[in-house]
């Protein structure tokens, strides 16, 4: 089974988010871009399927800046091909409608049975790449997947619903699946293997044109939330905070 894993680069929330001067976008000066966590899971799931059933795994990403290490890491991890698509404005961040159009174009000469990608990314505003890509390709899409099995040549995807309910969906291939979590946490790749991949593997580079961002709404303002009601903060060291909490719990009759 040939699997394609599109990877999207998103702001790392470990860093503080800052608003850019225009007030309409985030300030990218100190922004660290990392592969979307659920895309890491999608790659892990793809590699698990490859280990079980054979086939190939191709990783595709838009060039948002510092993406090479991630691609080499994917190859060191077991991916067979790594494709980087460059285009105007990709480093400033393009919306998912544009990204999915770019991917659709890039996939024209990459054969696949299955596309796995994270079910959503933290900076999604105009939908998610997976379902948008599926729609452009005319393929079925199921999201919030936490397990994939191959049964008699059919793909059965385990879909999560709220409340812990889960449903097994049979999906005709080719298809796109949005991964919520892989069956195992994404594996760590030893640095020396990544360095070796950097020496021996090649990243295929493509050029896309300008990105078509239509399909999303306009943004007039981006801001950090100011809570109307913020929590009443308790001060002090662990002892003092604990004392204050005990007093509060008594007050609210929660210590019976």
């Amino acid at each position, binding site marked *: 089974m040939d699997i394609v894993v599109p990877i999207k680069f998103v702001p790392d929330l*470990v860093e503080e988010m800052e608003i850019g001067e225009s007030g309409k976008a985030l300030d990218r000066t100190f922004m660290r871009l990392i592969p979307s966590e659920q895309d890491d899971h999608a790659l892990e799931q793809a590699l698990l399927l490859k280990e079980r059933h054979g086939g190939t795994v191709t990783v595709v990403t838009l060039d948002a800046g510092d993406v090479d290490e991630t691609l080499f890491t994917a190859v060191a991890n077991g991916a067979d091909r790594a494709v980087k698509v460059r285009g105007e404005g990709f480093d400033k961040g393009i919306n998912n409608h544009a990204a999915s159009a770019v991917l659709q174009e890039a996939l024209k000469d990459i054969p696949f049975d299955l596309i796995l990608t994270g079910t959503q990314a933290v900076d999604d505003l105009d939908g998610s790449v997976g379902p948008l890509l599926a729609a452009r390709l005319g393929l079925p899409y199921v999201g919030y997947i936490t397990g994939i099995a191959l049964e008699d040549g059919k793909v059965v995807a385990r879909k999560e619903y709220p409340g812990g309910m889960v449903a097994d969906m049979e999906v005709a291939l080719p298809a796109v699946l949005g991964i919520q979590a892989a069956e195992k946490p994404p*594996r*760590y790749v*030893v*640095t*020396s*293997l990544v360095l*070796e991949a950097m020496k021996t593997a090649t990243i295929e580079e493509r050029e896309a044109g300008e990105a078509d961002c239509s399909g999303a709404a306009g943004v007039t303002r981006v801001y950090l939330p100011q809570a109307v009601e913020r929590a009443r903060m308790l001060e002090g060291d662990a002892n003092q905070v604990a004392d204050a909490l005990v007093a509060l719990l008594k007050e609210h009759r929660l210590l019976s």
Partner: protein
Amino acid sequence: MTTVATTVSTNGGLAFYNKVLEAVPQGERVRLCLQCGACSGICPNGFAMNYPPRSIIAALRADDFAPVLESDAIWLCVACFACSNVCPAQIPLTTGLLAALKNEMLLRGKAPAELQTALANSRRYGNTLGQSPRKRAEWAKDLTPPVPIMAEHKEPVEVLWYVGDYASYHPRVQKVSRAMVRVFQAMGVKFGILGPEENSDGDAQCLIGEVGLFEMLALKNARAFDKYEFKEVVTTDPHAYNTMKNEYPGLGVSFPIKHYTQFLAERFDQLWPLLRRDQKYRVAYHDPCCIGRANHNDIYDEPRRVLSAIPGIELVEMPHNRENSICCGGGGGGMWLDGFSWERTRTRTSEWRVAEALSVGAQVLAVACTYETPRFDDAVKSTGHEGDLMVRDIAELLAEALGSG
């Protein structure tokens, strides 16, 4: 040190054996193993390993290495150097055999998840805690006078103080860092820190066998050091001391490095008049593995000398002291494997150490390592001895003795 850590040993024993031979200088001493078992006996977790060091070598010789690779016992090793220290054939067990086996397991993807996270964090953020590198000097931001951060300070300093991951980000250990600032300032030392330019020292990564990552971190630190003028690097972190003194030179990175107790012991005459407030405690000093028996760093006297400068302190020795010290359990990845270790051993070496301190009537357990303050604090609580024993870094005791201002 050559980086051989790219091939998984498909021929089980032989390829691994060659890896050990090449991994460290003196690697071939592994051939001299007497199978005496001193290593397995002295290992704090040896009783819970189905393949302690002796058995690993025995398996190699018997060409029956596959079971070793199926065992996860290696992750109980906390890189305390007790085995290396006691081996009559002087085999580099900790840095050679055991690190190579950990590397082998990592290459096979067989490492506990918490460890993988710590490694991934240090690769991405330059610290094992996964915190923003931009916040690495936040612990110092409200101090007056301010702590010089080299990128802003732009002047030569006497001492480039390497702070370390836990001392920068962990709330308990940040207190130690702030105490150290007071000591440096009281002594008029011209010092500076790298702040956001500082990366994980690489000691844990090196001893876990993630050689490539160790090299990457060491070279990043070296690049930062190269930018500035200083007489020596002083560190409050024994792991940093150990790796910068013993492993960095193998990468061509060399500079004068001291543990802070060495630095202060040298300046004893300048230090002791500043310590005016009586600290009336019975203090047991815990020798950290990494400045002690590790690689024969042998820093045992200097911390005691520094402690003797503090008025009111009564220093007592614990039975397991100096090169026989009991590891706190944090090295070689142990910092992230407490759950893993507990499930298999049902003991904590840190609790053993606390019990020993209490047995000699200590009121304070003095430490000099950034892993130790949180680990021994935890052990004091988990053994129900809160209030009976205080855990203090020497820097904290000094700061207290300085008095106000």
